[in-house]
């Protein structure tokens, strides 16, 4: 009997996370090295470790001021979107929930459009702030509209749809009225990481790492949200409280990601499902793996975005959907095959 007990798998495993972390580092180094000017590995690694550089001054600036912040931002945004998606799927007990569900995307889109229409050419400074505020305000509005039914996931979803549609309608109106802004708004909506500099990385990192820290810390309690509220209560948690903390932190991460990168679709849905396929664990039990995988996924997607049709650049949202959708279908099909 004793051996049988030991055979039961432990609930948390760190090895998977170690592999994912390693993958993120390798992919990041590759992404940093590839571009119009290729940098060699030894040079990158010795420069990053602060040793005497094997790179020219120009290459150093390219590495430290352009490539590195961009890869860092991609990793942060990927981690934020994937983790928030996973948390939303758990909270709303719906495998197709995505981080933009409660109006964050539409709100951020409206905020961005207001910034672009009102501040002329210098919009890039205020755009992230407006997008962030738009996203957060839209989610708050969703909760207000749901009113006393905010604890009921499906009521919250419905009010999210209503708020999202309203924000999109206002955004479209503004866009049509100022047709000159169509192009920048459109390219923002498709997602872009071109604005990456250390300042935006710093701000994004503060919010996103804080939010992800909260989510990973409460991730074990999220088990309870997958049960009915009564079951969760009988097992000793207040489902409403946990739900509010989870949605709040996920919204903060999402709004931050959207404000620095525009709307990058599909990451929040696809990554949690892929990771669940690999780790065979309930989504909330693998949040750290999902963060790491999301980061890796977006670093790769961004690499594709800036190299596939170089010197031009593709919107990163196009890449995530382009790779993500077929990959997702492939996984679904493989899963069905196994089930039969």
């Amino acid at each position, binding site marked *: *009997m004793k051996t*049988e*007990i030991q055979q*039961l798998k432990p*609930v*948390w495993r760190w090895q998977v996370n170690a592999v994912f972390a390693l993958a993120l580092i390798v992919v990041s180094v590759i992404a940093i090295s590839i571009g119009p000017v290729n940098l060699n590995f030894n040079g990158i690694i010795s420069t990053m470790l602060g040793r005497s550089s094997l790179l020219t001054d120009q290459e150093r600036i390219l590495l430290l001021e352009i490539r590195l912040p961009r890869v860092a931002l991609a990793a942060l945004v990927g981690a934020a979107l994937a983790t928030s998606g996973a948390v939303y799927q758990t909270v709303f*007990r719906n*495998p197709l929930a995505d981080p933009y569900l409660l109006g964050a995307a539409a709100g951020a889109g409206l905020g961005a459009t207001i910034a672009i229409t009102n501040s002329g050419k210098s919009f890039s400074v205020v755009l992230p702030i407006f997008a962030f505020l738009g996203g957060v305000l839209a989610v708050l509005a969703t909760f207000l509209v749901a009113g006393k039914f905010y604890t009921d996931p499906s009521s919250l979803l419905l009010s999210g749809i209503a708020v999202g549609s309203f924000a999109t309608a206002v955004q479209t109106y503004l866009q049509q009225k100022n047709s000159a802004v169509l192009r920048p708004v459109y390219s923002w909506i498709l997602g872009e990481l071109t604005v990456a500099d250390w300042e935006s990385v710093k701000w994004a990192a503060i919010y996103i790492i804080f939010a992800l820290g909260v989510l990973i810390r409460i*991730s*074990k*309690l999220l*088990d*309870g949200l*997958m*049960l*009915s*509220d*009564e*079951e969760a*209560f*009988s*097992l*000793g*948690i*207040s489902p409403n409280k946990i739900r509010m903390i989870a949605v709040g932190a996920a919204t903060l991460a999402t709004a931050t990601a959207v404000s620095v990168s525009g709307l990058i679709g599909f990451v929040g849905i696809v990554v949690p499902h892929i990771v*669940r396929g690999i780790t*065979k*664990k*309930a*989504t909330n*039990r693998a949040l750290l793996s999902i963060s790491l995988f999301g980061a890796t996924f977006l670093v790769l997607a961004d690499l594709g975005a800036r190299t596939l049709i170089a010197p031009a650049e593709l919107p990163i949202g196009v890449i995530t959907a382009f790779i993500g959708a077929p990959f997702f279908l492939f996984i679904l099909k493989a899963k069905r095959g196994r089930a039969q």
Partner: protein
Amino acid sequence: MIKVENLSVSYSDKYVLNSITLEIPDGSWTCIVGPNGAGKTTFLMALLGMNPYSGSIKFNGKEVFKDMHRNVAFVPQRPQIPLGMTVREYVGLGRSKIDGWGRERKIGRALIYQTLEETQLIGLQNQLVTQISGGELQRVLIARAIVQEPEIMLLDEPTSALDLHHQITTLNQIELLKNKGVTIVSTMHDITLGAMYAERIIVMQNGKVLLDGGAAEVVHSNELKSAFDHGISVHTLKDGHTVITANKVRNELI
């Protein structure tokens, strides 16, 4: 001891429970029966203490509302099935209250294993909860409640999804817990089955307690028949067992 006094619950001005007063002694099995909409599940929910009620429900002298310290296991009629969780992990959730969420102490792990054995789930432990049958799920829910080591166990229609054989094995399992001193309160549609196991039966109708007493006494009372609009008959078999059946109404009489 659970002491219920003047308990009322209302949804939008309509009373679902209407001033109920009763006591449930420790280590007993109380079965609540009654027609659909009588307030059985609402009564169970009130005992759980999650939703507001008026009046008072005291467990060992303490009000149960929002009291997280009590250890009450709840077996729902329609559970929410989590994606990607194995039977073993799902049963393990029962330890969360004592061991902490996402944690398993050695003693808890041993209990989980022992319970999986006893409920004949050991072969299913690595299956996903989404992929097991209704009868297996019911056993899994009971197993989760057992590893919770509760003082009180609330069960909403624990046998409704089960075939005859599994109805009996499930109820036997619950009886074992009762014998260990756990207070059991269950709702059940099948009064015959309820009377076989519970020592006390409460008949509810329109949010009120219509009848409350020992199983045999309640089963043979006229009030029971009136609670079901005289649509049932009570038969006593040669071996002393009582069977309650619904009266068949012939088509030509309607």
